[in-house]
């Protein structure tokens, strides 16, 4: 789950991480009010959207004086950035930047740990730094049982600073950011850039956090910050029904039990010359109500011309699956052709039951996919 920069900065402030003074605004008038409150000739106006690259898209501007502020605020509010409409901007005091740094905590699959990443190349896209000069990124794997003790935070801070006073300031920020990361079950806590100001202060002037969806049950406050897009809402609705659903834009709707098999099915459709409409994993069992719900979901997609059902019958045997499917299809009225492929335990019995039901029955994934693709053309 993503949150906005201004929300992340509020969390930073709660955990004692220094941030620039800034105010979130939903209108030009709000922005003007914020400008007077900030009491700073120059301010930064930043679009608040759940996507990267807002700078390149023109969503970040420096305003010198109220006139410029009005102009930029008006331009950015309502702007479309990668499909996201900007409805909030963050107006912040402009900072006298001496130098910019990159800092983040992120989950690392390989070490099965949280890691701290730091770089003197702040303000840049970190993937870009990783590609061009990976030696400029320092990584610290964190032992979860000890976290970020003083020595480790200091060791990390020495990668960015030489002056011991700055090292100590930065070390405390690294410890606080780690605490925030762990306490909120974050999957990313990024400061890019962390800046050293001309006045000698170290502070975060951007803030990015994402959270582990599986842990939101114990972070109700953070969960309320969720702002799903329309597409994400659809996915979320599917999830609430026990499905995983992702729209892919093609014509062949698919319904599969199991995520891996569902991915393999959509890949096969492409391999056979078709276009998958979606990824849809209906989970372990395949009871009639679930099939009905899944079919409704598939048929709500106007692009779908054929439905391909691919079920592996394991613990639930194919003959039981077939009975469930027949029951479900009694209640679904549609002209869209449905291809069913049923494999696994008792597959012959299962397929036999489906014969004569009006559903197109196939033996293998290949055969089923070929059928579905040809019906589409």
């Amino acid at each position, binding site marked *: 789950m993503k949150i906005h920069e201004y929300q992340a900065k509020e969390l930073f402030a709660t955990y004692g991480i220094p941030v620039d003074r800034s105010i979130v605004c939903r209108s030009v008038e709000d922005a003007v009010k914020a400008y007077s409150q900030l009491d700073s000739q120059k301010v930064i106006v930043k679009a608040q959207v759940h996507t990267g690259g807002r700078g390149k898209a023109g969503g970040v501007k420096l305003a010198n004086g109220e006139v410029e502020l009005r102009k930029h605020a008006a331009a950015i509010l309502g702007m479309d950035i990668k499909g996201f409409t900007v409805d909030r901007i963050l107006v912040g005091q402009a900072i006298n930047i001496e130098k910019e740094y990159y800092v983040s905590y992120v*989950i690392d*699959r*390989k070490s*099965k*740990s*949280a890691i701290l990443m730091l770089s003197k190349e702040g303000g840049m896209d970190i*993937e870009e730094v990783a590609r061009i000069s990976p030696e400029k990124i320092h990584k610290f794997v964190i*032992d*979860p*049982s000890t976290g970020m003790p003083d020595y480790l935070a200091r060791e990390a801070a020495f990668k960015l600073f030489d002056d011991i006073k700055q090292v100590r300031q930065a070390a405390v920020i690294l410890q606080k950011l780690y605490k925030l990361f*762990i306490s909120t*079950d974050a*999957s990313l806590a990024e400061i890019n850039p962390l800046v050293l100001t001309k006045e000698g202060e170290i502070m975060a002037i951007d803030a990015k956090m994402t959270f*582990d*969806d*599986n*842990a939101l*049950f*114990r972070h109700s406050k953070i969960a309320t910050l969720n702002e799903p897009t329309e597409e994400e809402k659809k996915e979320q609705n599917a999830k609430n029904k026990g499905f*995983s659903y*992702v729209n*892919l834009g093609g014509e062949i709707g698919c319904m*599969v*039990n*199991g*995520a*891996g*098999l*569902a*991915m*393999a099915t*959509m*890949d*096969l*459709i*492409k*391999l056979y010359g078709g276009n*998958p409409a979606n*990824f849809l*994993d209906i989970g*372990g069992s395949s009871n009639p109500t679930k099939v009905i719900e899944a079919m409704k979901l598939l048929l709500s997609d106007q692009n779908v011309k054929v439905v391909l059902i691919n079920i*592996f*019958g*394991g*613990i639930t045997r194919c003959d039981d699956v077939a009975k469930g499917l027949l029951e479900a299809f009694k209640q679904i009225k549609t002209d869209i052709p449905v291809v069913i492929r049923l*494999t*696994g*335990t008792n597959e012959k019995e299962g397929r036999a039951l489906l014969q004569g039901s009006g559903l197109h029955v196939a033996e*293998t*994934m*290949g055969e089923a996919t070929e059928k579905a693709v040809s019906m589409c053309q």
Partner: protein
Amino acid sequence: MSILIDSNTRVIVQGITGRDGGFHSSKMKAYGTNIVGGTSPGKAGESVDGIPVFNTVRDAVAETGADTSVIFVPAPFAKDAMMEAADAGIKLIVTITEGVPTLDVIEAYHYIKRKGANLIGPNCPGLISPEKSLVGIMPSMVFKQGGTGVISRSGTLTYEVVYNLTQKGIGQSTAVGVGGDPVVGLYFIELLEMFENDSQTDSIVLIGEIGGDAEERAAAYIREHITKPVAVFIAGQQAPPGKQMGHAGAIISSGSGTAAEKIAAFEAAGVPVAQEPSQIPELLKNRR
């Protein structure tokens, strides 16, 4: 031989009085797995399908000599269950539970490792050494004893592949579902090494998917260390970036973790990659 579990493996079920725990305990027991006990705090003295229930894993281990545990407790309690098992001396911990917070897995994983034990999962179907022992929720009837080791990030896709193998007469030494989360226990490299060293195993099937770079590292490892034939299938070529494909770990982030990269890595390492699951038996045969 087989890896990790065999007919001597003594298994307890944590959360045995729950719906899934009870159902699969009976399934495992029926398959012939030595299910020696289960735990459910406060229910010591009860039994589930003839399996004795204990209050704590320590009690269960003391009474039954269990060395392996399979965990079915709800996600918020999974970390505690994993740590309890490791602390009580369990050597193989198989966590079926889905939706465990990543930081919980990280904490439990490091603790388990420190205790000298192994973790499989969470969010996994478990593992099976066909005709010897089943620890997890795999549909045992699609498996057959034989020489192919199977490692997979997926559940039903594994059954699909195994079903194809079995139908072609290719049995399995052990099949392990490593789990679909970004952070899980035993993974490709450790299991490849175990299969390489296992005398029963004569070939290996690796089933990967999008997300992370474990397949790329596995490809490099196979080139350096694996002498047995390996065939690979990678799911998710059509997955769009930034979208989680069912498994929490199946996501292309910042443009990396794509199926194309993974397939290229295996091909560069000389490991054949199947275009569809049904090609796997053929690829294995070609290599032999």
